């Protein structure tokens, strides 16, 4: 579905990614793990077309992202991709419902059906009753669930999540990771998640381990979550 070929990213004189190759398949729940500064967030941003790569190619289906226009890239971000960030990036000036409906406003499809769709996700992820609240009035977990609803309201094919539980306590983190699992299993969306928490990573189907801008290896879930968690822990020693 998405293929990264020999991705290189430099920031000034620092080489953050040193030729990364990665393929993400349809309906896969994939995790990217690594220490701070290993380049995992940069890789996610490049795959999500938020950050340009210094060198290398990104293919979405069969399209080379380098060759598409800005308008087409905006369309793909609007219709095919959804984003969840560690810092939520909710608009402080909009209510919860309006924040969830934001992608619909952008794609000019905010109507009664859109509102119903947004409310469906709000109910699904347990933030009903908060529709008219402002982001400032919410807890971290509630904000992140609002961001999840916003990422899904346009029915994207892939959801990118950058450390979605990084700013949350363990209880809220659990709620959010359950929500991401629902996105993948129930709604059949492809999820690409960056995390450094092995507990959260154990929800994924496959883990990519990054070290110093290179892929060190990958761990695929073949057993139950506990077994997978132990396997991730064991591999983390190499990171």
């Amino acid at each position: 579905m998405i293929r990264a070929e020999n991705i290189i990213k430099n920031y000034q004189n620092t080489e953050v990614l040193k030729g990364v190759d990665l393929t993400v398949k349809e309906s896969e729940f994939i995790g990217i793990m690594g220490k701070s500064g290993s380049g995992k967030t940069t890789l996610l941003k490049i795959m999500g077309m938020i950050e340009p790569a210094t060198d290398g190619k990104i293919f979405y289906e069969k399209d080379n992202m380098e060759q598409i226009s800005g308008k087409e890239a905006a369309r793909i971000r609007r219709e095919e991709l959804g984003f969840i960030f560690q810092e939520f990036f909710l608009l402080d000036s909009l209510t919860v419902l309006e924040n969830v409906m934001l992608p619909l406003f952008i794609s000019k499809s905010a109507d009664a059906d859109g509102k119903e769709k947004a409310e469906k996700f709000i109910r699904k992820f347990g933030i009903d009753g908060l529709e008219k609240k402002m982001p400032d009035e919410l807890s971290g977990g509630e904000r992140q669930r609002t961001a999840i609803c916003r990422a899904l309201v346009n029915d994207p094919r892939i959801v990118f999540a950058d450390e979605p539980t990084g700013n949350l306590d363990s209880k809220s983190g659990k709620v959010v990771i359950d929500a991401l699992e629902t996105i993948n299993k129930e709604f059949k969306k492809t999820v690409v998640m960056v995390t450094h928490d092995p507990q959260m990573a154990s929800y994924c189907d496959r883990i990519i381990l990054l070290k110093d801008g290179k892929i060190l290896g990958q761990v695929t879930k073949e057993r139950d979550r506990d077994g997978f968690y132990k396997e991730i822990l064991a591999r983390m020693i190499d990171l």
Partner: protein
Amino acid sequence: MKMVFKIFKSNVRRCLPCFMSSILVAATLFLFEGIKEMFLATMSVRERLESSLGISTHLYIYVLLFIGVILILYTVNNYSRIRLRDYGTFLVLGSEKGTIIRMMLSEYGMISAVSYGAGCVLGTVFLFAVRRMIISEGIVMELSRQMYLQVVCRTFLYMVMVYAAAVLMNVAYLQNHSLSALMRYDRKKSTLPSVKVSLIGTVCGVICFAAAGIILNNEHIPPYIKIKYGLLLVLAGVFLCFTFTGRLLLYLLGGRERWYFKYLLRIKDLYYRFADNKNIMMLSFVINFTVLIFITNNIVEFGCTDSRYLWKYPYDYVYAVEEGKADEFVRKFGGEGEADISAYPCLFLTCTEYGEYIGIPLSVYKRFTGEEEGLEPGKVFGILQKSETGEDAVLLSGRVAFETGEGIQRFEAEKQMNRILFCAHQRESINVLVFNDGDYRSLRKTWDGMSLITWKARENVRTESDGGREKEERMRDLADSAGVRLFYSREELMLRDRKEDVMALIFYISMGIFLMISNMAVLAVRTWTEIPVLTGKYGFLKKLGMDEGDIESNVKGELSICMKIPFILSFVLGICALMWLSGGRGYILDMRVILLFGAVVFVQGCFIAGIRNYGYRLVRESAAGKEENGVRIWN
């Protein structure tokens, strides 16, 4: 559009500083443009070009415009800091750049339209109030509908220019940065200079100060040059020291471990806050210093003008008539013993190169001044009747040539001086050349002889006959009918001077108020933007178990550092400047200057204390609110 309006509506609180600064700038520009228009309408085209105030009014508007641009850019930039992050989010969610640019244009358009409207209303009120004040001084100032519309249109043009600059900056930022950079925009912090660079910068700063000291204390350099270059060097020194000395001190402090660790938290925090805000502090210092010294001195100088011009106009009227008609003229205008009238021979000379002069013989010079002086043939005294302390000279090259009966004759300047013989005239600068009596006779052969007639009301009849516009108009009509070459009326010239002074006074008052409010607005906006950072710090220190009192002094110290440093620095340097000005530099330190200086310091001090306490209260309330919502405030 509906969405943009909704977002904008909910962002109104955030744009308040932006609105306020824009309204302030629009109102000030409107007011000053209006005054300029009224003032220039009273001048002929030649006067506009020649009068120093005519030129200055054009300059003043650009100074105001420049300050306005800085103020609006700063507040818009702070607003953009929040909005760019939102625009980044929009782009990530699939908005196109064109849509975002349109969104920005409509948002800034709304801000500028509302501010412009409010600024025009406020400016109109001020303009009419100022006009009334000027008219009460006996100065006629017309403001026609066409002039008013011109002011409205020009202010609109200025505001469009200012906002276009702000929007273009943001569009350029949007175009040149990735989406991820846009989302990180509000985290931008300034970088610290290295120790090596700091050392060089500090040394350069000290050199600038030393050079300024040498220039300012040099007796041989003219005051104008001294102030111009001295001030430039001081500013350069302040900028360099502001930027680099702190880093150097921090490095040196690192060596004194006991001291360093005892005050580590406070010193480091304050330094980093200083480094982040140094440009604002520099701006604030320059504004404070300008207001404390330059503006206060000028307000006092131009505000108190009772009888200050009398020395410039020793006679009520001065005429120049043809030599042959002088006796008849004196008979006609002499009145019945109401005035002392004297006639002095003179010549209206035109130099062979360039320039017009009034030539008088040495004997006439002695009659005017009562001084006994000698003058060799071929030498002249150059007298500029403008002021008594000015440094301008009539003959820049020190020599002048005129056509005489025996061909072109060159004269050397024996000495040049600024003094008033019969009348000063700011605009036309009456240049007088005093010749040896023999040389004068030689010139008289070629040039038509004239008589300079001075008319001065006698003291005992002054109150009855000294009389206002009517008498002045009668004297002018008589002079016109007698075909005089020159006519000066003390009353008319004093009124002109007063008009220029009132204009300058209004300019300095507007400028002072504008600068002070701008300074306060910039500092308030800066403090406002620091609140979230300090809220995090407050919560963090509280979690660490620090005493409430210590936290308070810590947070207040950080909140007020960018206000306190420029305030203290400008206060200390202001006092030094006042002492320097009064220490034998030709200025008398007026009590009114000291009072105004004290008043400005008091207002600023109150503002700093107020914003410091209010800021701390906001931090505390904000931290309490976040704790209630369960957010990790020390993140």
